[in-house]
C-alpha cells in the first residue's frame, strides 16, 4: 500500500500540470479565434524552403 504515497501525489501533479496548461492557454488568448488558427496552417510561407 505504501506505493500510494508516491503514486497519489504523482497523479495529482500530472493533473495539475494539465490544469496549469489550460490556464496558460486561456491567458494566452488561444480561444479567441478557433477558425483563424485552423486556417493559418494552410497559408504558404514564401520563405518556407526545404533545408
Amino acid at each position: 500500500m505504501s506505493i500510494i504515497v508516491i503514486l497519489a501525489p504523482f497523479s495529482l501533479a500530472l493533473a495539475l500540470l494539465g490544469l496549469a496548461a489550460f490556464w496558460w492557454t486561456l491567458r494566452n488568448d488561444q480561444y479567441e479565434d478557433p477558425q483563424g488558427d485552423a486556417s493559418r496552417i494552410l497559408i504558404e510561407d514564401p520563405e518556407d524552403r526545404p533545408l
Partner: protein
Amino acid sequence: MALTEGEARTWAGTPPDEGVGGPDLSAYLTETGPGGRRLDLLVSGAHCAACIARIEGELAGTPGVASARLNLSTGRLAVGLEPEGDPGQVVRALDRIGYPATPYDPDSARQAQDREGRELAMALAVAGFGAGNAMIFSVPVWAGLFGQELGPATRTFMQWASAGVGAPCAVFAGMVFFRSAWKALRAGRANMDVPISIGVILTLVVSFQETLLMGRDTYFDAAVTLLFLLLIGRWMDHALRRRARSAAADLLALQAPSAVLLAEDGTERMSPLRLVRPGDRLRVRPGERVPVDGVVETGESEIDNALLTGETTPQPVHPGVTCRAGALNLTGLLTLRAEAACEDSTLARIARLVESGAQSRSTYVQLADKAAAIYVPVVHTAAALTCVIAWMLGIPVREAVLRAATVLIVTCPCALGLAVPAVQVAAASRLFRRGVLVKSGAGLERLAEADHVAFDKTGVLTEGRPRLLNADPADIARAAPLARASSHPLARALAEAAGEGPAATGAIEIAGQGIEARATTGLMRLGRAAFVGAPLSGNQTELWFRDADGALFRFAFADALRPEAVGLAAALAGRGLSASILSGDVEAATLRVAGRMGIPDWRAGLTPQGKVEALDDLKAAGRRVLMVGDGLNDVAALSHAHVSMAPGTALDASQSAADLVYPADHPERIAEAIDTARAARRRAMENFAFAALYNLVAGPAAMLGFVNPFVAALAMSGSSLVVTLNALRLLNGGGR
C-alpha cells in the same frame, strides 16, 4: 429594409473628383503605448486562409502599419499603427483588394473582451480537475462501503486526500455562485445560487467534521462534482448569450454608427455618433443614412424615410428641409447642419419608449426561476425537518446534520440548473443553422407562449424596395441603358427588370432630378416628371423616360411582397396563431399587402406611439403578441410586445430591441422559430418533470438515511446526464 449596395459598403471609397483622401479616422484609434496606436476594423468577406494571407500581406506592405492580425472567427482586424501611419490608408488598401472594412468604436471593441467567459472557463476547469481527482481518493472509500477490506486509518488517509483536493477546488469554483448568492441576499432576494451555496458550504463543513471525527461518510467529491455540473450549465448559458451579443455587435458596426464631420476648411473627419454636437456640419453621401436630425445646408437629393415611417415613396429634399436621423439619402451629396446631438434626436424619443417597454418586460419570470421558487423552499424545509425529526427520534446530532446535508446534496439542483440552459443552447444552435439568431433564452420561452403575430409591412412582408410594375418589354429595353448608368433605387429596379446589357456612355446624373445622356439624334432623359418634361401625375412611385426623339414613357413602381411571405399567415394559423398588420404606410399600400397575405386585420398610417397602443389593446384582450418589425418606427413596439423578431437587415436599434433576428429574405422561418421554441419548452418541461420525479425518490431516501456518498455521486451525475441528453434531442429536429 433591404440594404443597398452603397449602404453595405458604408462610406469606404470617396469619389475621386473630390480631391480629398477620404475622411479622417483618428477618432477611432486607441493609444497602445508610446507612439503606438491601434485601429479595430470589422472586415466583411474574409472566409478562408487565402483571405487572411491576402489581408495581412497587403497591410504588411502598407507604409505606417506595424502589425495586422485578422480574427477569422469574428471578422475583426486589429491593426497596429506607427506614429506616422494613416488609418484612412489602411481602409483604402482593404477596399482596393475587395474587403470593405468599417471602423469599430474603441468602446465596443473593449467590451468584446470576454472577461466573464474566461472566469467561467477557469472555474469550470478547476471544478473538473477537482471532481476527477477527489474521486480518485473517494473510490477506495466507496469500495469500503461495500465490504471491501479498508482499515479506518487508510480510510481517513483517503478522506484527507480527497478533502485536500476537493475542498480548495470547491471553494475556487464555487466563488461564482457564492458571489451571486451574497449579492442576492444583500438585496433581500433569494435566487437559485443561494441554495447551491448553502448546500456546498454545509456539505464541506459536515465532511470536514466527519473526517476529523474519523466518520464514515464524506462528500468532498460530491460537492465539487455538483459545482462542475452546474458550471457546465452556466457556461452554456453564457456562450449562448455571448454569441448572440457579438453577432449583434458586428451588425451594429457594419451599419456604421458614425458620422462624417465637415470642418470649416472643408476637410472630412469620421466621428463616432455620440460625439456629434448640434451645429456640426455633416456630410451624407448617397447610400448613407442621416446620422442625426439636421437641416439641409447644401445639396439636392431624395431621401427614403421607410425605416422611420414605413412609407416607401422617396421624399425630395433641398436646402432648408429637415432630415430625420435614420433616413436614407438616395441620390445627391448632402451637407447638413446637425440640429440635435444623437441623445436628443428623433432616435432618442424612440429610445425612451423602448426603455419603458424593457421595464414592463422585466416582470417576466423565466421558467428556471419559476422552478427554483418551488424547489428552494421545499428542499430546505425537507432538509431542516430531516435534521429536527432525526434528532427527536434519538439519532445523534452529528448524524442528523449529516443526513440533512445528504438531502441537500442528493436533491441537488444539477438537473434543474442544466434543464433549461441545455435545452436553450440546443434550440439556439438549431435555429442558428437556419440563420435565426436567438438573443436570450427568455426570448425563446416567451416566443413559445405567443398566440398572435403583429407584422410591420415595409421590409418585413415586402422587400422594402421598389419593383417595376407591369411595363412593355420594348419600353424597358429603350430606357435600360440609361437606367444601368444610374444609382437611384428606381433606376436600379428598372435596370434589374431589363436584365444584363450595355450602360449608356457619357451619362450625367443630376442629383434629385434624374439622369441624362446625349445620343446621336438628341438628348435622352430618365427621371422625375418635371425633369423629363412630362405632366405631373398621381401619387404613385414613378419614373419617366424621354427618348432621343422626344417620346415619353412612364414606369410605375411598387414595393413588392416577398414571395416567401405569402403562405405565412396560413402557416401561422395552422399553429394556432392569429395575425395582423400594423403599418405606418398609407392605406392603399397596406390594403394591397393585407389582401395578398390574407390577413383581414390591418391598420395603416400608424405612428410609433400608435403601434404601441395597438399592442396594448391586444395585450388588454389577453393576447400574447409576437411583434415582427424592422424600422425605427417599430422599435418601441418591438420592446413593448411580449416577444419580438427583427429581420437581419433591420436598423441596429430594432435588432437590439428584438429577442430574435431572422434572415430578411426568409420570413417563413418565423413559423419555424415558433416551432423550435415550442419544442424547446416541451423539452424543458420534460426535464423538470424528470428532475421532480428524481427528487421524489432521492429526497425521501436521503431523509431515511439510505444514501451514502457513492449513491449520491451516481444519482447526481446520472440525473444531469439524462436531462442533457433529452435536451440534445432538439438538435436533430426532434420534438415535433
